[in-house]
């Protein structure tokens, strides 16, 4: 990675332009460590909550009448928690929060593209599912989960664990 243009030699000599400084200002040791500790704990707590929700979804699925809406809400909650986690990692661990606004914007703004990217792809996937279900009845019958149309035929088994 080293190039013959080595920036490092000259950074110290940048005193003529005091605003050009490549050093972070959070050198206050105690405050920094406290911030890192806080973030670590926060990330851990969020992860634990996520796991709890994951297990809750599992329990709901095992139950007699899975509540689709509740599962969906749980899943939405997990997504939001994940975004919160991502925010803390980027902002604190990657120090983006300490950069100046210009920098933050050049990173955050392009990420907005993901919104339409995700919506369009997922909507399209969903639309193909609908097409198949409508015009390929065999596909629908052979892949639709049992509780939608097989229920009358057999009781839903309780244990879903895989066998080794």
């Amino acid at each position, binding site marked *: 990675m080293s190039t013959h243009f080595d920036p490092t030699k000259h950074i110290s000599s940048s005193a003529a332009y005091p605003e050009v400084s490549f050093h972070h200002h959070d050198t206050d040791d105690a405050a920094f460590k406290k911030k890192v500790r806080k973030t670590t704990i926060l990330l851990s707590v969020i992860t634990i909550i996520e796991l709890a929700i994951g297990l809750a979804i599992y329990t709901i699925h095992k139950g007699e009448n899975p509540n689709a809406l509740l599962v969906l809400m749980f899943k939405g909650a997990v997504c939001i928690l994940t975004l919160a986690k991502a925010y803390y990692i980027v902002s604190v661990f990657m120090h983006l929060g300490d950069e100046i606004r210009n920098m933050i914007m050049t990173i955050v703004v392009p990420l907005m593209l993901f919104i339409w990217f995700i919506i369009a792809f997922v909507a399209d996937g969903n639309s193909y599912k609908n*097409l*198949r279900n*409508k015009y390929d009845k065999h596909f629908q*019958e*052979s892949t639709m989960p049992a509780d939608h149309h097989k229920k009358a*035929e057999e009781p839903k088994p309780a244990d879903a664990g895989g066998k080794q």
Partner: protein
Amino acid sequence: MQTTFIVAILVLGFLVTFQIAKASEYVAILRGEERSRKQTNKINGFLLLVFLIAGLIGVYYCNEQLKGKILGAPASDHGVLVDRMLYITLALTFIVFVITQVALFWFSYKYQESDNRKAYYYPHNNKLEVIWTVIPAITLTVLVGFGIFYWFKITGEAPKDAMQVEVVGSQFKWEFRYPGADKVLGKKYFKEINDAKNNPLGQLWDDPANHDDIYVSGEPMHLVVNKPVKLVIGAKDVIHDVGLAHFRMKMDAVPGTPTTMWFTPTKTTADMKKETKNPDFVYEISCDQMCGKGHWSMRGEIIVETQEEFDAWLAKKDPQYAKITPAKKVEPAKDSTTAPAVLKDSVIAQVIK
């Protein structure tokens, strides 16, 4: 020999051109670069004007020559919408085309370098810029509005009484399936596709809806004039595309994902033969999506006819099921009705085999 000759001519022409070019460079230096630059400037300014005029005449001439070859009036109701949209767009864009091209070349010619004139320092004019942001925006709103209106009409739900035909593409042929008397296309599964077992589309025989389905291949698809038809489109191997130039319709045939299109043919093949004065006229299905080395020859035909003609044609066809029935031990219709719906069709098919 001929090739050698052509190459020789080209090389010779090139050498001559190059010598002239080299000489003109020297001449320019001798006569003074400034002077010769001004001269070439005049020539090129003039040529730009010539290009504009010749170009516009060329556009007119080209249209005169070729407008008769673009298939004439559409032969379906949706085709009328597509053509209308096309001509609306054409009218608007052609005006813009002429104005901007004329301005471009005229300005180039008019404002070519001259000692008598100084360039006008004109860095911006917000009012002008707003005007030519707003006008295109409004024009395009109109186009988008019409476009989406027609688009939803064309891609919307087919009428309830539409006849259904399944179209399946594979390298490099089209196959068709008519739903028969029950008007329902039976289920199919690609792993059942087996030409040797007379099952080219992978129909699942335990589905009674399949028993009257009529399979057609190696001959044209037949459609009824003025009766909406809904094509259910699929492919076996790679992506193909059902292109119906005369109906102005098109839809990809994608393996694994059924697609559909519907339209109402408004002219029978006989009508079109008269209209085009071509006794060999036939509606064609072109494959419009690159599908392998035979893509260019993946041709299907459609015959649009009256209801009576169609009925007579269909009556002569046997359902595909009839071709395999003698081989079967059990009476399949009964079998499939008694079998629990839970059973996977493929499993049943396996058992039957």
